[in-house]
């Protein structure tokens, strides 16, 4: 039942033997089959089937048959996970499963790609394996032209966006349709090109619309986004804020590719990871007092720096939370590297403070300020924002009380820190309270481990001197 094409193995044999080849051609293929019935006559290619109307690729969960097994009509060959469900892939063919190209647990197999070969019953299936494999592997080798193609297109689109003038949708549509560049057309509008200018130009030059090639469009939207996001630095600030006048009802804002990528990854994280949440309120008067005391002595650090130190210490005390995914494997790094969320014009980026345990609060502060500054200038190296075992996102400086963040895989947890506020404490005394919310991957971290971690963070922040104590300070 698969997508099946037959290859006449006989045709292939022609290439091997010149004498036979000329002989067969004279007599026709039919007689060739008669004379050499021992050679495999037909090989049936089984291709990845589309088992749902919207399926474009799928996962082969497991094969029910193995190489050399006899196949009869109606047999289930393998289980395939489509975009909707796991379905049995049946065949209407008869023969021997000669070769499996895509084994168990193969994900993202494109519809129409070759997954197995079927030989006719009674044929030497091992023979089929050898002779067909080379032929088919050359057929399915990837086409290199693809990459060239999209670079070209991405350059083109970049050239477009560099233009400072505002192009309305009608203008853009016309330019695209007639393959024009806005710089070649005389602009008469207060902010650049008008639709009338383009129409006039088209009429003058007597232009015809260029035929639209169907492949261009998807490449622009998807591929360029991926390419640009790989650039280490924050891409040029693309959003230009212009004052809207009453003549313009709206203005098109360009979304940076970085934001698109972030959105895509966050959507995948939020939908694909079992997010669980855990909030604690910490009384941070001691930390505030400590900071003030040092400040009076001329030593400056921020509350955030000490939060980073406290979280790192807590991760050291509760190593069950200091975990990341490596593929399907959960691993525990030996150091604590903390990603710190930094807002830039084109989106959020998380540079890493490495080996926090080995750093003092002042060194942490220096590292954070240096990384944040370079992040805003778009000068971070790849290794400076990729990796990390835990993320802290602090929106306290904006007056946010409490929020929850989305886990950044392959990490398993992220701490969202709110601002401090005054509350009525024991005996009617005012206390400064800060809320922190942990989002964690419940597959990797148990709720109890998360709770122990959060209470450790709280106790470390409530009595910063316990940062000195080490492992025995862990609450029982």
């Amino acid at each position, binding site marked *: *039942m*698969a*997508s*099946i094409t*037959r290859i006449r193995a006989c045709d292939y044999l022609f290439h091997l033997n010149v004498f036979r080849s000329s002989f067969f051609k004279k007599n026709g293929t*039919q007689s060739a*089959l008669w004379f050499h019935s021992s050679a495999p*006559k*037909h090989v049936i290619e089984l*291709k990845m*089937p*589309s*088992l*749902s*109307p919207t399926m474009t690729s799928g996962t082969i969960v497991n094969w029910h048959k193995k190489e050399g097994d006899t196949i*009869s*009509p*109606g047999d*289930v060959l393998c289980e395939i996970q489509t975009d909707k469900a796991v*379905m*049995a892939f049946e065949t*209407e*063919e008869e023969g021997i499963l000669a070769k499996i190209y895509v084994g168990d647990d193969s994900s993202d197999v494109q*519809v*129409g790609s070759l997954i197995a070969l079927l030989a006719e019953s009674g044929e030497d299936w091992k023979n089929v394996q050898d002779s067909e494999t080379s032929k088919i592997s050359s057929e399915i080798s990837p086409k290199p032209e693809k990459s060239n193609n999209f670079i070209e297109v991405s350059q083109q689109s970049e050239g477009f966006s560099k233009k400072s003038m505002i192009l309305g949708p009608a203008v853009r549509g016309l330019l695209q349709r007639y393959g024009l560049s806005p710089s070649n057309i005389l602009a008469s509008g207060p902010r650049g090109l008008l639709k009338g200018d383009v129409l006039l130009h088209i009429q003058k030059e007597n232009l015809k619309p260029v035929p639209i090639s169907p492949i261009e469009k998807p490449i622009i939207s998807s591929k360029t986004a991926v390419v640009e996001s790989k650039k280490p630095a924050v891409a040029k600030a693309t959003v230009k804020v212009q004052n809207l006048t009453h003549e313009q009802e709206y203005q098109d804002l360009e979304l940076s590719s970085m934001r698109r990528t972030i959105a895509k990854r966050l959507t995948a994280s939020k939908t694909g990871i079992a997010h669980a949440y855990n909030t604690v309120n910490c009384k941070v008067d001691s930390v505030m007092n400590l900071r003030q005391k040092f400040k009076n002595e001329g030593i400056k650090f921020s509350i955030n720096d000490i939060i980073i130190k406290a979280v790192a210490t807590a991760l050291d005390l509760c190593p069950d939370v200091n975990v990341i995914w490596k593929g399907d494997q959960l691993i525990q790094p030996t150091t604590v590297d903390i990603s710190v969320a930094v807002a830039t014009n084109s989106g959020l980026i998380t540079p890493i403070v490495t080996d926090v345990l080995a750093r003092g609060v002042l060194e942490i502060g220096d590292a954070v300020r240096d990384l944040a500054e370079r992040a805003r200038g778009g000068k971070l190296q790849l290794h400076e924002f990729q990796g990390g075992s835990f993320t802290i996102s602090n929106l306290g400086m904006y007056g946010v009380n409490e929020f929850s963040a989305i886990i950044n895989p392959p990490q398993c947890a992220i701490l969202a820190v709110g601002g401090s506020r005054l509350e009525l404490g024991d005996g009617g005394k005012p206390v400064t309270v800060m809320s922190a919310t942990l989002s964690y991957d419940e597959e990797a971290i148990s709720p109890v481990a998360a709770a122990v971690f959060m209470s450790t963070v709280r106790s470390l922040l409530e009595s910063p001197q316990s940062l000195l104590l080490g492992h025995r300070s862990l609450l029982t």
Partner: protein
Amino acid sequence: MFSITLRSLGRQVHQQNKSLAPLFTYSKNGLNTEASFDTKPFKLHKLEEGPSTSVTLSRQDALKYYKDMQMIRRMETAAGNLYKEKIIRGFCHLYSGQEACCVGMRASMRSYDAVITAYRAHGWTYMMGVDPVGVLAELTGRSTGCARGKGGSMHMYVKNFYGGNGIVGAQQPLGAGVALALKYQGTDGVCLTLYGDGAANQGQLYEAMNIAQLWKLPVIFICENNGYGMGTSVDRASASTNYYTRGDYVPGIWVDGMDVLAVREATRFAIDHCATGKGPMVMEVVTYRYSGHSMSDPGTSYRSRDEIQEVRQTRDPITGFRERMLSTNLATADELKDIDQEVRQVIEDAVKRAKSDKEIGLEELTADISCNPIDTRVRGVTAFDTLSHRRLGPAVNNH
């Protein structure tokens, strides 16, 4: 189960198919030219006498039935594959498992008898004279399709074949109408009107049966009972699953639809009945479909895979017929294998053409809408822009 009559050992063997001719140089000797079999007993409703359960089969017919059934099976397999490659889009209902029904009925039909069926129409289209290219290219929407690629799966037509019909049960009264036309024209032609066990519960069938009985119309109402109306088994859908009795005042026959010979005999009997002015008849053909209801039904959520495999192994119309031919020495295993190869080749070539042939141009958008258009203007997007109607293809079934 069957008695074998050996006759005419030395009789001249006629073989229409030239590609098989060389085989006869060594396979002629020792082969029978005719054999007789016993079919499963027919069940009768309001009939004194039924068709004969003892049937004779000539070697020539046997080879033809075998080839036709194989052709339909392979064609449907190819259609399923093309669908899974997303080359055939939309609706697609496969006939695999039910081949003996249309092949058996066609064997008893005369050239001027008519057929109208439901959406499972590929096999019938082939049997009524469209080659596999015509069927598969229609499914892929190419100009070489039997409706120039404009119809698709359920809309195939050819001389005396009034189509697959997409609306469940709608063909039942239409079939009675075709029978009325045949009678009105003064022929003794009969219209075979097919429907499934699901559509058998529709009210319009009983309205059509009533008028057909009243006016003694030459129509055979044929219920192809494959056990399931979409995903509902007959037991859950029908108060009475004896579909051959459900015409009440219309006589009925129950036939084993997995036996091409039984179907052929029953159809011959029914055609005789209708053509001699005795009015309509109901024929229940009990069969089985291997694939799901349509391509979007995996076909295993309402029945077990074991059930399907058991039917394949014990009741398959092609395997059963092949065994009969071999055991009565009507054909050799090699001969049948060669037919299989030839069928494979025909379907392979048809698939190639169905993939590569051209689609019709936009100018045919308004072509062949009516057979005899009175007004040749066709309304466009608005009432103010009209397109003109064109007549291109020959009008089939134009009286």
